[in-house]
């Protein structure tokens, strides 16, 4: 299992590097090398580190533990073909982790970043509506059942495209520089990350790497189905490039607009799922 975790971490960081590269090229910049995020993580790990004077020290350190722990757990759940409700639960917990990162230091910038991450909670509601849409078809939320269902009936991407779109928005809301990334607005310095430096920041990169892999992998598993390893890698890279294009070509919304848009999407999804449930599921 250790090789899988390391591979997922490395791959996730490379994907994030690719994201930066694509965004830079769209903006006619050369951009950093693809392995830049990995270099960052390594660099931060070998920096002298301490806990700020004003911080709630146990929380400050413990939240890094929680952050890494939950994403390792999420990866294991994906590997084992476990329940997607757990994965999405962990996805939502990422918000708490960001919140904890921000608030535990006592820094005003961290605090505002944390509060923004709480506001971005609206992005989670479309998630559950799409989960409901999936469950209507597959009658199970275990990843292996969903994959087995798709092996018979074809990818869910074609069966429930709106659910895939909603989940795509969810992925987008966790991408750096995306339209819903209110947590990372430039007026907040580094937002919730401001005070976590040194190996704490390296831990954040570990979280980000694992998170990217887990979320993209889950998306591919849920909406496209089982593939050979090389297939997974190719599809995830393509997905990442699509996400990067979306991020680069859309403005960052204000927190209010972001919440409004996501609530509207949720409403549309609710109507859609209601229609499916009312008409009865084919097959």
């Amino acid at each position, binding site marked *: *299992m*250790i090789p899988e*975790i390391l591979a997922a971490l490395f791959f996730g960081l490379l994907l994030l590097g690719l994201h930066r590269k694509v965004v830079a090229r769209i903006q006619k910049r050369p951009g950093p090398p693809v392995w830049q995020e990995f270099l960052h993580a390594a660099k931060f790990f070998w920096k002298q580190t*301490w806990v*700020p004077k004003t911080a709630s020290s146990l929380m400050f*350190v413990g939240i*890094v533990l929680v952050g890494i722990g939950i994403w390792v757990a999420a990866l294991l759940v994906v590997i084992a073909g476990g329940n997607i409700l757990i994965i999405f639960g962990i996805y939502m917990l990422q918000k708490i982790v960001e919140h904890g990162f921000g608030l535990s230091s006592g820094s005003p910038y961290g605090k505002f970043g944390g509060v923004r991450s709480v506001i971005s909670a609206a992005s989670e509601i479309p998630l559950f509506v799409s989960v409901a849409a999936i469950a209507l078809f597959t009658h199970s939320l275990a990843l292996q059942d969903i994959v087995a269902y798709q092996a018979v009936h074809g990818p869910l991407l074609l069966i429930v495209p709106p659910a895939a779109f909603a989940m795509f928005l969810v992925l987008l809301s966790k991408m750096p520089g995306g339209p819903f990334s209110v947590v990372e607005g430039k007026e907040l310095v580094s937002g919730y990350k*401001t005070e976590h430096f040194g*190996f704490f920041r*390296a831990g954040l990169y570990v979280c980000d790497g694992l998170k990217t892999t887990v979320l993209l992998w889950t998306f591919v598993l849920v909406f496209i189905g089982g593939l050979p390893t090389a297939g997974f890698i190719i599809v995830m890279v393509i997905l990442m490039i699509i996400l990067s294009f979306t991020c680069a070509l859309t403005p960052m919304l204000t927190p209010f607009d972001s919440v409004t848009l996501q609530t509207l999407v949720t409403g549309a999804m609710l109507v859609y799922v209601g229609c499916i449930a009312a008409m009865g599921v084919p097959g």
Partner: protein
Amino acid sequence: MKKKDARIIAALTGVLMGVLYFPYVAGLITFWTYGALLVIGAPVFFLAAGFAMMAGEGEEDDPFIGY
């Protein structure tokens, strides 16, 4: 946390995770038992290693409050 303690914790978790990998591959312990160990052990190992190598010696900092 003292650097020495951190070193011990890092070594312990690292060795435990490394050693128990073989019984897991051999099928002696279940996926979730080893998984639970990793979920707890990986972050602890990461942080303890960080503390052991790079914990600051001097006075703590004030937080960043602006340029």
